[in-house]
């Protein structure tokens, strides 16, 4: 399901591999992304470019991954469609996850913080 592009220093760009991150898909996404964290990739860029809709289950999956990373890493998002950005605003996730226009911008920003 997910597509992962690994970089140095534990950095990984993860695409959910689904158009809709909802109750039907969020559990598998969280499990697969969680395995990346367990493997030592504790700096994740979640690329939501191909995600057109996210519900509270999708939000919960992202929050769960953030808690799994804890203080040893970080999770940022990129490529938010307008509907996804609106959901982030409504749920205040825009205050929890730094957001970037695309994965290239996110990579520059996250690597600069290393």
């Amino acid at each position, binding site marked *: 399901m997910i597509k992962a592009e690994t970089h140095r220093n534990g950095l990984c760009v993860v695409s959910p591999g689904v158009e809709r991150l*909802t109750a039907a898909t969020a559990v598998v996404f969280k499990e697969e992304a969680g395995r990346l964290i367990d493997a030592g990739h504790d700096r994740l860029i979640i690329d939501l470019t191909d995600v057109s*809709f996210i519900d509270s289950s999708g*939000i919960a999956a992202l929050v769960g991954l953030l*808690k799994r990373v804890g203080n040893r890493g970080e999770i940022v998002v990129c490529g938010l469609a307008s509907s996804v950005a609106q959901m982030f605003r*409504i749920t*205040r996730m825009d205050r929890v996850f730094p957001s970037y226009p695309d994965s290239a911008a996110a990579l520059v920003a996250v690597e600069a913080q290393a």
Partner: protein
Amino acid sequence: MSRSTFRMVAEIDAVDPLALALKAELADALSPDTLIRLEIALVEALTNIVVHGSAGNSGLLIDVLVAVDAAAVFIEIIDNGLPAPQGIYEQKPFLDEIDAMAESGRGVALILSCADAVRYRSDAGGNHLELRFLREGAP
């Protein structure tokens, strides 16, 4: 007033197809932002019924009635599963009070925040969740 009806079996994989079909039907009736709010509220409501209301009843059916007039889009979601906890749709939206790191509990608050009006009743005829979304320019 135009009316249409959608029906789904209370299974999690049926939520997104119904939401997409309904969104396509209403694409010209609502502004893009309102359509997003409608989709959020609808998906949360349907998911709640599947997850909490079906009680393992794989045959439970959910009907979604849609009515459009000059002022608003009306959505009525009807099911015969377990009713929602009493009073849950009468509280004020409390999204701001939910712990940002919570991994559950946002569904009802999202419905209350996204719809312009919400009404819920449960009686012998089933559980009815009514949502209203104002159209652009409506008073």
